[in-house]
């Protein structure tokens, strides 16, 4: 059995003096598509920000592909092979689609940019439009393509379906499944959208009280409404 690609070991992190994650441990296997669920405000985005080096790790260890990335600066996390699609997308509004993609990989050649645009044809149709002029769904597709153009070993996404029309959500889900199948890419998907979770994920973990409360195979999720009630109801 391969070693897990990502290991979080007893991580605590948060904002100011408060801790949002407390002694959180999680391992992600190579090639796995992991769903991360939990109520609003439970700390899903905090978890991804901590992984990306945007928040300080107060205690614990973060290991990725054998590198210790505990409190590494964000650019080192990215360089180690983590692609990040943040909540709210954060495309560069004044840059064109092409320039946004180049930001994801300064060494990208034309065929890399072509390949990124192949993932979402709308990006090619509007290649000269600026990021700020795109619809929410198009921005989300751009943010995903921008993360993938860096050829990450691990792709992390924070609520990619948020505020996006259902047809585009399905298209994004299909693309994620495709890159996971074709490239064997490991994916961590923070989502509230059940369709997307069941469409893409192998396994789902629920976040509660600053740590991982439960882990279940995605297939079991639909048959266990009690789990959803316990961790998702308000």
């Amino acid at each position: 059995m391969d070693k897990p690609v990502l290991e979080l070991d007893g991580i605590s992190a948060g904002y100011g003096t408060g801790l949002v994650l407390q002694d959180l441990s999680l391992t992600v296997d190579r090639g796995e598509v992991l769903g991360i669920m939990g109520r609003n405000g439970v700390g899903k985005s905090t978890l991804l920000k901590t992984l990306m080096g945007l928040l300080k790790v107060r205690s614990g260890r973060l290991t990725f592909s054998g590198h210790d990335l505990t409190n590494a600066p964000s650019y080192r996390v990215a360089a180690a092979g983590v692609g990040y699609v943040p909540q709210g997308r954060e495309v560069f509004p004044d840059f064109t689609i092409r320039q946004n993609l180049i930001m994801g990989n300064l060494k990208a050649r034309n065929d890399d940019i072509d390949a990124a645009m192949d993932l979402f044809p709308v990006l090619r149709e509007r290649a000269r439009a600026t990021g700020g002029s795109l619809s929410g769904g198009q921005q989300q597709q751009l943010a995903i393509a921008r993360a993938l153009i860096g050829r990450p070993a691990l792709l992390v996404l924070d609520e990619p379906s948020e505020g996006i029309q259902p047809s585009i959500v399905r298209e994004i889900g299909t693309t994620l499944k495709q890159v996971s199948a074709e490239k064997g890419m490991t994916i961590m998907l923070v989502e509230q959208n059940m369709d997307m979770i069941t469409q893409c994920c192998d396994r789902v973990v629920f976040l509660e009280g600053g740590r991982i409360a439960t882990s279940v195979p995605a297939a079991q999720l639909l048959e266990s409404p009690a789990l959803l009630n316990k961790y998702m109801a308000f």
Partner: protein
Amino acid sequence: MSSVATIVLDASNYALILLLIALGLAIIFGLMNVINLAHGEFLMLGAYTVLSIQMAGGPFWLGLIAAPLAVGLFGLVIEEVVIRRVYHRVLDTILATWGLSLLLKQSIVLVFGPGSHSIEDPISASVMIFGAPYPAYRLFIMAISLLVVTATFLFFFKTRIGLAARGVIANRNMAACLGINTRNLDRMTFSLGAALAGLAGAVIAPLISLDPHLGLGYLVPAFLAILVGGLGSIMAPVVGAAGVGVTENLAATFLSPVYAQLIVFITAVLVIRLAPGGLLGKKRRQT
């Protein structure tokens, strides 16, 4: 009374020098959020580099090349030793760079004395422009400023590292999460900004009297220029330096230098009141 051509040329001259200084300030502020109060002293160091080489018997042109290199290198060291430790706390950067400016002025007093020095004219010839003689060296200043400013803009707008730098200005965290090495960009930016100030100090050295306090007279209008143009944009200093430089220079020609500073200051305050983000500034993202 000088001719119209001379007045226009003098005003452009001053505006272009101001642009060299303001551009450095603006890119340092844009990328690192550092308000560099020692920027005027970087300029002074450039001028004193020329002086040192003159005192050692070297030609002016060697000083002109050495100044941006020396001050750029100095900026690199200062970034590593001071700035990177404080850059995420605005008040600390202000205190640290203010302290640095005092230290630099004092060091110059120790080495060169408190009095003033002058640099020999590198080109004493004049050129006839619209029937009036105009110093060729001032034309040279305009040419070199235009060249360097153009090169700086080409770097920011036509290269991928320049794109990355603009990405850091727009959204530092996101750029870093995409793998942009913000540490290297900070080093490069601070050093480039310092080098631009050093170059400005070197080119104006023959026109001014060198003393340890010469920086302030340029820092203040350069700051006004980036405030008027708009913080957080690399194009802003162009508009700001043109506005501030031309206004100050014309007012100094027709009224007096004291009135000129007053008029520039009042106009700048008015512009900033009416357009708080500056002329090219964007509205702050509403949250």
